[in-house]
């Protein structure tokens, strides 16, 4: 019974890891949509725009790191379950 539960949990974890990998790929597409520093703005407007862009990239980088960490931890847990299942 325990083995069956462990196997179910392992499958669930592997599926979660796979979903997280897909989310990471989708975040790559979002990164491509974000602007970089702009030559169209001048003075304070340029500073504001560039600061905003930096914040966007920073938010995205944090999210990417967290998703990757979650995926890694999920895979670690799945591997541990595999060992338990044998």
């Amino acid at each position, binding site marked *: 019974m325990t083995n069956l*539960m*462990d196997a*179910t*949990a392992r499958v*669930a*974890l592997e*599926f*979660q890891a796979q*979903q*997280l990998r*897909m*989310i990471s790929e*989708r*975040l790559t*597409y*979002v990164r491509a*949509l*974000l*602007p970089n520093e*702009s*030559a*169209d703005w001048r003075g304070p*407007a340029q500073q504001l*725009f560039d600061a*905003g*862009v930096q*914040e*966007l990239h920073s*938010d*995205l980088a*944090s*999210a990417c790191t*967290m*998703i990757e*960490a*979650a*995926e890694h*931890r*999920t895979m*670690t*847990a799945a591997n*541990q*379950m595999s060992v338990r299942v044998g």
Partner: protein
Amino acid sequence: MSDELTISGGGSCAIATDEMLSNAANLLRAAEQTRDILGAIQMVDARLTIGQLESLGIPTAAAIAETDLDYAHFALSQLADRAEFMSGLVRFAAQTYGLGEAVAESVVRRVAADAAAVIGFFFPVWAVTVVVTSPLLPILAGIAVATAVLGKANPLVVDHEWMSAQLNELISDPAFVLALRHGVMTVDEFSAGASGVPPAVVSLLSAAGVIGLASSAGLIQGAGGIAGVLKETPVTLKHTTEPEPVTAAQSVEERVKRIPQPTDAHPEQVRIEKYETPGEPDQFEVYISGTVDFAVSDTTESFDGTSNLSLAAARPSGSIAAVAAAMREAGITSNSPVTFTGHSQGAAAAARLAESGEYNTAGVFTVGGNIGQVVIPDDVPTIIVEHTDDLVVAAGGLQDNQHALVVERQAYGGLALPAGEAVPAHHLTQYAETGRLMDQSDSVELQGDAKRMALFGRGATTATVTSYHYERVLP
């Protein structure tokens, strides 16, 4: 070569570079995508709760992963909100800048017009000097320069040596071109003032649209008629090509490249594509060439200097007569949906044909046309492409077609002008390059309008193209 496009009009007062509009569109897309991803994260989160993990005896690493997902969710929520807000800010900036530009332009235009009327009234003897040195310069100099470089009839009127690099640089300078655009708008007020009309009356006539660029061009043509030049004639069909199968233009660049560039071997100035769909009226694409010969007399070319001035004066021109005759030959009636595409004089002809209201105009697409003061009806989808270093565009005055999507680019920004080429920014190849950049643009405004035009003729079961060559009938 500058790759930056500036986009304005389209029913909005916003003026923005292509990059700004692309950024605004992409930021909004990024916000939408991020919100989709947030939904996916929530689904992942909901599948395995910490309680379930504990009951299944799953290692703590998985529980920490749940916390990571919560942080990621928070960061992405911020990202989505921030991206949407920034998209709105970029659009707001474009809108505000556009409003400021519009107000400033209106004030400059009014003040310049009133000043011209007053100067003309009090100092009429300056008329000759002003006429020679001010706004008519682009029309007259343009004809002279083009005659020298491109003309067939009078190739030696001005030699290539004279066409120095310095002059070319001056007339290709965006600041000079813009100044001329403003200047063109005041020559009529000056002329009216010089002929003795009180400045206050000139101001009223100008505001009412009674006097304008067309009246000035008409004046020149009238004077030319006395001197035996600039006289209009009937036209006659010389040659048509055999109808050939064709597919509709799929991109802006392709559309620009389809505009005829007549040569001795292929002198056709008008290209008409016919799209037939059972149960629907035939649809037509009419492509119109630019000026072929800049001569103002003794030429059989219907796309000549005389036609240029007739178009500016809103009078019947040889080129309009040729296009109208070709359209009749192709079976176009007043009910047939038709899209006009033209370069230079072809652009002016396209705008005038749409203005006439005699056709069921489904769209107008012009490049390098002097059509600022030609009133294209508001209900006609219109894309106007202008180079800020193209002198010919300036001859049409300021662009007043507010509903049209106006795309601007400095063709030779930061680059040396090619030697021996007059007004190189006016060349069709340069406008094809702008078309390519428009195709690559992510701007929602641009893609929306260009896509609508590309849909024209889609789904036709038969599509053919025929080209037409018309000549003047000399007296």
